[in-house]
């Protein structure tokens, strides 16, 4: 990959807000003067399928796609999805994982098994893995939709620009379009930033 390009992979399940989180990262990178490309495969993802969104930014970005082994950061909105995409992370990369488990129908009816200890498997790879229950934090703050902002808060200290830049972008966005949600999103961002320090061990 090119010098100075940051590769962020955001993964989860259709409907979880993966694309919204990726969009926020892309727009913030744009505001910092980077060239930005963002891609995902949508379409049938809406029906409960796997969603992965690639965000790349740097002085100049050509391909929108992140190759396996080239992601600097992995944001996983669901724990098994984090495991599925882990091979995209560089050995020096960081994974930020929501410990939420969502079993698809093929698992719930017994055709496949959900990994018994996905966090353990993640941590056993030797990669820097941070894992916490973003849903529980969102529930404490009174709105499950805050998971998105919590995850962005959690990854914010690993970005090549200051965490507060991302926070300001998110909160200002809410202040402009949904002002009632601005303050609670600011809190969610800070709570995520705090929780993101929790390292997973195998």
């Amino acid at each position, binding site marked *: *990959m*090119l010098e100075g390009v940051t590769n962020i992979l955001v993964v989860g*399940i*259709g409907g979880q807000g993966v694309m919204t989180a990726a*969009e926020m990262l*892309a*727009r913030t990178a*744009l505001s910092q003067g980077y*060239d*930005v*490309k*963002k*891609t*995902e*495969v*949508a*379409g*049938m*993802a*809406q*029906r*409960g*399928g*796997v969603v992965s969104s690639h965000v790349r930014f740097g002085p100049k*970005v*050509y*391909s*929108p*796609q992140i*190759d*396996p*082994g080239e992601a600097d950061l992995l944001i996983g909105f669901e724990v*098994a*999805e984090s*495991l*599925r995409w*882990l*091979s995209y992370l560089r*050995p020096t990369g960081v994974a930020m994982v929501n410990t939420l488990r969502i*079993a*698809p*129908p*093929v*698992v*719930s*009816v*017994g*055709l*496949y*098994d*959900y*990994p018994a200890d996905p966090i353990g*498997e993640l941590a056993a*790879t030797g990669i820097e893995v941070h894992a916490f229950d973003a849903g529980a934090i969102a529930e404490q703050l009174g709105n*499950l939709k805050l998971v998105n902002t919590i995850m962005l808060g959690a990854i914010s200290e690993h970005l090549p620009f200051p965490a507060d830049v991302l926070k300001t972008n998110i909160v200002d966005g809410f202040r402009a379009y949904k002002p009632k949600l601005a303050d609670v999103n600011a809190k969610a961002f800070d709570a995520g930033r705090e929780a993101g320090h929790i390292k997973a061990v195998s």
Partner: protein
Amino acid sequence: MNAVVQAQAESRHLLSGNEAVARAAWEAGVRVAAAYPGTPATEILENIALYPDIHSEWSVNEKVAVEVAIGASLAGSRALAAMKHVGMNVASDAFMTQSLAGVVGGLVIVVADDVGLSSSQNEQDSRYWGRFGHMPVLEPADSQEAYEMVKRAFALSEAYETPVILRMTTRVCHVKAMVTVEGDRIEHRAAGFQKNPQRWVMTPANAKPRLPVMHERDQQLRTLSETSDLNIAFSGSDRRVGFITSGPAFMHIRETFPNAPVLKLGFSHPAPLDQIRTFAAEVDTLVVVEETEPLLETEIRAAGLAVRGKDILPRFGELAPSVLRPAIKALLGEPYEVATRAPSKVFPRPPTMCASCPHLGPYFALSHIRNLNIIGDIGCYTLGAGHPWNALDTCISMGASLSMAHGMDKGRGESDEKKSIVAVIGDSTFLHMGMQGLLNMIYNRGNVTVLLLDNRSVGMTGGQENPGTGQDLHGLPAPRLDFAKLVEALGVRPERIRMVDPYQLPVMVKLVREETKMEEPSVIITNRPCSLTDRFEHLKPYTVIDDKCTGCGNCIDLGCPAISVARRETVTAKSGKSKELVFASIDSNACTGCHMCVETCAPDAIIQPQPTIKDRVIRIQPHA
């Protein structure tokens, strides 16, 4: 309002390829834009719809959309039609002849190839249509180029009186990248239709003289392509391999081999063969990197040049860096290290139908009735082929269910003698190309049971409108088609037209059972809206009383993603046979209170906690 609609001249925006096309169409003075939804092209018209000075519409299919655009062009207006790759097959009858007649107002056909089949039934290379239909093909590599090439395409179309194909792929349509927006809309006045039967009435006598005109146009376009600034040669220090490429593959090559010479073809058909010859002379090995068919490669080889391409690169799928790197390294005889970590083995997560999906009821019924051949169609209901229903046996193209079912009825094999033939089709697909199949079936005395699943939306592409929804592309009220009257007009006897609430499972099962036994065509029409659209009414979630659940598993068979297996128990009956019990639970965050699963539960173990009278009412959607 969308930020790009308000964009100031010379401002920079993060836009998808589809958004960029819409913005450019507006600036180019397009007056008419038409499309049928289809991934990955759907958002082009959704974004054009944000510009009030363009007449934009969901047409009922791609052929209609292109013909609407042709009519506007003959009136002198700039016009655009957008579609996914398979839509081109439908539209081809119109543009193959209009290409011969030519155009007046600029006419651009934007086609989006789903390279890699993220949401399609096949993979096609729409660049063929340029060769087949004698139309120039422009290929953007990213959003900025999509924006610029739309404008170039309109100028080209008018200068050479030809339709122009703008060939996009998923990796252009859905990638967001920086676009510098140039300016405001430039109006192009329409002169009005100039009657000229020799030109516009394509009888053999009038069409024949157009053939040499069209071939001459091909030659002129080839000359233009040789000097077009859309075809750009990038020099490079490592001349062992020189790449010829088009579309987003260009980005992957620059990413992977930044020091290699590249000839990027934005104006890829007719190909600039002289420029290619000059480029080839400067590199050791010429490699064509094109998605997906070896079109340029074949033409370059036919021009007498030594060229590599599909002998070292895949014939299908995206040519991403992870594909290019090992192939080119192997060509150069250099070692290549694969990523050291193997991907983790995780269960698959196939797309599923949604909680409260009105297709769940029909598939519950179909999966409980034996001796059916179930001929399917294109839409969310294609998922009925999957687990747990396994109740869809074919799917090929838009509207094919009815005509194929009729053929299967007439061509019955010995083993099918006792089987009933069922066709399953959605509202929008029926209106796109399905109703002709029903008309044909009635006319030719067929016997098929049709399940017309009317969920009042084009569901799979995100809930767009169609003539059956009562709203247009802009969300404004529109005349609403009455499906029952339509199928009656096509010749189905009124007694065999059955309206049903798909949530009432016993009724649903009974109706399908009854109608499949009839010796004449029948149409069962469901009437619940797609649960992802605003027309769907969310009610309080249900829950399973664990003490009452007997583990029968009937509700699991519904296939609702809000219902999962809480636990399994193996019990031994008095006869000594062991049996597995499956106890269910409902995810209250996913359940939307549709009530369907309650119908499957004999012991009344599924309840709404503290239901109100309002919640208990099953609302039946009036159809018309």
